[in-house]
């Protein structure tokens, strides 16, 4: 499903006298359909940078990212043309970060429903119904559905963020610490949601600090710096 080969990323910062920062080099791993890889390592070791390279929010400096696209077949995300990347983001690849970054002035329920309308072509009513069910599962009270998430608490924002990411069952989902400020109960719900996604065939790569999530959903671990794949959890 996904094969990362000798991936490297350096930042060349022209405005700081061409300072060069090596984020990581020579990262290789592969994932079969429905597998879940946990990325771990100390902060600053390049975990988020890898996810951003796979989502192409960052340009890779070297190596390949082979993705089995439903639309294009084998596609090298590191070098594919922009509109191909936009297409796979629209239909196949999801990304969820630690912070909810959404369009301002859109109610929570519509933020969650939107991927079902634009990606899965559901009607707005049906999408809203499903979004509401999902938000309730994540313990967001219905009276907040039509409020703007920028006024929500950190934990509520993260739950909206996760709901938006999992509602449309992408083929590949990249998770960059989306559970950082969640309490135990919410983490248990998120763990269940991720297991359901995995069961439906979504391949995932995630960065988590919470051991419960790592132990209960990931199949493999990639340790940054050491650069080896260790089989962990079950």
């Amino acid at each position, binding site marked *: 499903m996904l094969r990362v080969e000798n991936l490297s990323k350096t930042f060349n910062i022209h405005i700081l006298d061409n300072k060069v920062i090596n984020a990581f080099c020579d990262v290789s791993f592969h994932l079969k359909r429905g597998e879940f890889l946990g990325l771990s390592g100390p902060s600053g070791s390049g975990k988020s940078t890898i996810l951003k390279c796979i989502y192409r929010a960052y*340009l890779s400096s070297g190596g390949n990212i082979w993705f089995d696209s439903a639309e294009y077949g084998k596609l090298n995300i590191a070098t594919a043309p922009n*509109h191909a*990347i936009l297409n796979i983001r629209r239909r196949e690849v999801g990304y969820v970060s630690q912070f909810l970054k959404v369009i*301002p002035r859109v109610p929570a329920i519509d933020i969650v429903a939107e991927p079902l309308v634009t990606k899965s072509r559901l009607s707005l009513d049906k999408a809203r119904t499903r979004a509401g069910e999902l938000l309730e599962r994540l313990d967001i009270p219905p009276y907040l559905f039509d409020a703007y998430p920028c006024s929500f608490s950190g934990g509520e924002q993260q739950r909206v963020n996760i709901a938006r990411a999992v509602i449309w069952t992408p083929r590949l989902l990249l998770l960059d610490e989306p559970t950082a400020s969640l309490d135990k109960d919410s983490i248990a719900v998120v763990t269940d949601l991720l297991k359901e996604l995995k069961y439906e065939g979504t391949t995932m790569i995630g960065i988590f600090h919470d051991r419960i999530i790592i132990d209960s959903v990931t199949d493999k671990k990639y340790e940054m710096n050491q650069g080896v794949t260790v089989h962990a959890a079950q």
Partner: protein
Amino acid sequence: MMSLPVMKAEGLTKIYGIGCPVCRESTGPGYETNICRECGAVVACGDISFELYPDEVLGIVGESGSGKSTLVKLLYFDSEATHGAIYINDSADNVLSLSPFQKRRIRNSRMGMVYQNPHYGLRMEVTSGGNISERLIMAGWRNIAAMRARASYLLRKTEIPVLRIDEPPANFSGGEQQRVQISKALSNNPSILFLDEVTTGLDLSVQARVLDLIRALQSNLHLSVIVVSHDLGVIRLLTTRTMVMKYGRVVESGLTDQILEDPQHHYTQLLVSSQL
């Protein structure tokens, strides 16, 4: 299942002045000027090529004088390109070599434009309905009742009270004028919409409403849009791909989030780090 571009530009160049053989090679970011050292001509746009896909919003960002508005004027035939070609849909004919009459026809049937200054896009003393009908007439409409119905529909869509259809835009606020301009630009059901700094100069809450309106219209009507702005917030909100211009050249282009998070060119890094 690759869709074809709705518009393709190749080597678009606009030179103000006499021009000479070295104009293009002696200007640009590498020389930190767009003035030709031999003849003193200004290369406002040099060798610009891009493709615009259906249902896509492409941003053009850059500081004043970088050539972004000139580029849009070339695309909308407001200004004549010195060199280059524009192809519409998958036609192999360069529309720049067509007669002025044929260009106007393409513009009236396929394109819409919203200028920064509503005075360019509207006749301030003519009623709002009249402004919209003017464009419909150019696109071949003749039935007055139908034009009036269309104008009411568009004013409703852009949140202008239909009651004000017979009032001239001169009586309107800046944000309302901009929304009448958007109605006018959309009246002929264009497939390509150009927005040139449309929210510059509006206050924050009005800016937000105009931007929300543009987003809603784009996703409902599946328009291809080119957004010119020096405001990275507008670019982030509206666009999926972005071209960065400097000294009349495109110095960098890519996915908008990549341009903003991992800018490659010196100028783009400076621009992104200058954000408030």
